[in-house]
């Protein structure tokens, strides 16, 4: 930021009748600091008449003020004029420092100046950091050598499902009427779970289903997802748990 401003100043100085583009400045304080620096003015003792004239000149060079964007610049102009009028009041004695009408503005400018300097340093750090690229997606987990991972075929799935159904029948699935679940919704739910959890133990999920109907729907939803190649299902051994992953950018290849 600091360097930008200096370059901006030099650029503007190149032209005899310079024109200040307000959009170069982040706000009225930014413009004011620029003018103060240009005039080599001590921030602690601003000749308010000089700086007010400079500031108003900048605004007047514009053909029209965009009130949406530049209302704050006008507000500052009003503040400057107000301070100037305060300073012009005839006084018998010089004002004590704490009653100086410029005091508030000076405080604001000093703090703003510090912020701009911090921005300049942070900008450099951002530039440095922009050369470091970090990964944005999760890399695949390595395949373990101990278990023979196999991408589940539809047959495997079906077989597992029906054996599970037999087991489940004994456990009495509550058949709740009226709660109909669509495959589409189930597919959405499975995908959402996978987005949350990255890996889903399907048999575990299956047995969490409240009704038999839901369980069946969830099974067919998984089949649909596999067919659409949206998920990857891997079974470590037949009748063992089926692990489901979302297919992401990185395709995992089973053995």
């Amino acid at each position, binding site marked *: 930021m600091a360097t930008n401003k200096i370059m901006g100043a030099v650029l503007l100085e190149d032209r005899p009748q310079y024109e200040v583009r307000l959009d170069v400045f982040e706000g009225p*304080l930014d413009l004011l600091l620029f003018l103060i620096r240009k005039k*080599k003015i001590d921030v602690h003792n601003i000749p308010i008449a000089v700086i007010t004239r400079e500031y108003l000149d900048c605004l007047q060079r514009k053909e029209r003020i965009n009130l949406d964007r530049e209302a704050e610049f006008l507000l500052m102009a009003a503040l400057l004029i107000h301070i100037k009028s305060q300073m012009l009041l005839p006084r018998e004695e010089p004002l004590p420092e704490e009653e100086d009408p410029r005091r508030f503005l000076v405080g*604001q400018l000093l703090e703003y*100046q510090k912020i701009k300097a911090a921005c300049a340093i*942070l*900008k450099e*750090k951002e530039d440095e950091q922009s050369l*470091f690229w970090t990964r*944005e997606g999760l890399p695949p987990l390595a395949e373990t050598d101990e278990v023979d991972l196999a991408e589940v075929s539809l047959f495997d799935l079906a077989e597992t499902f029906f054996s599970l159904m037999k087991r489940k029948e004994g456990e009495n699935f509550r058949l709740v009427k009226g709660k109909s679940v669509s495959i589409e919704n189930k597919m959405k739910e499975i995908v959402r779970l996978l987005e949350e959890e990255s890996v889903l133990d399907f048999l575990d999920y299956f047995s969490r289903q409240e009704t038999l109907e839901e369980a069946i729907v969830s099974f067919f939803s998984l089949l649909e997802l596999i067919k659409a190649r949206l998920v990857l299902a891997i079974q470590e051994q037949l009748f063992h748990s089926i692990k489901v992953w979302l297919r992401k950018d990185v395709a995992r290849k089973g053995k």
Partner: protein
Amino acid sequence: MTPDLKEIIESLVFISLEPLTPEKLKEALADFPAAEVEEALRDLLHSYSAGSRGIQIIQTGGGYVFSTRAECDPWVRRLLKIDRKSKLSGAALETLSIIAYHQPITSSEIQALRGVDSSYTLKTLLEKRMIRIVGRKSSPGRPLIYRTTDRFLAHFGLNSLEDLPTEEEIAKILGEEKTSEPEP
């Protein structure tokens, strides 16, 4: 073959998309003595800083994360077909540094410091998750208050708020600006 601790830590740093904090590392490695974890971590960092590698482990945002080496940037950008990494606007940078130094801070306090309305910039920063709302101030109107996030730290390669530019660094910049003023 059981991997040794250093290798395990390498895999954990690698798998973390956000910087891996020492706390999380120790939690995941609760079965090892903390002192050993620390030593192995130091060892790992050392081996990366010494070797000439295309990737490195950087300490940022309160933890450790893998990144490509700066020198490889031109080819990385060519591979990803990205002209350059997006950077923050001047307004965003200004607002962020105000929040960073003055947090917790309200929207109107930010406005007072910047001299301009900052609500649009706040929205952008919230969306980029560089800042977050942390509650309300117990002052009249009970305005929302903002803080910077770890993502903010990581964006600038800072490890903690203590790494923000110091008074001395700021004074130095201000001094330089004075001496390099343009001639009238």
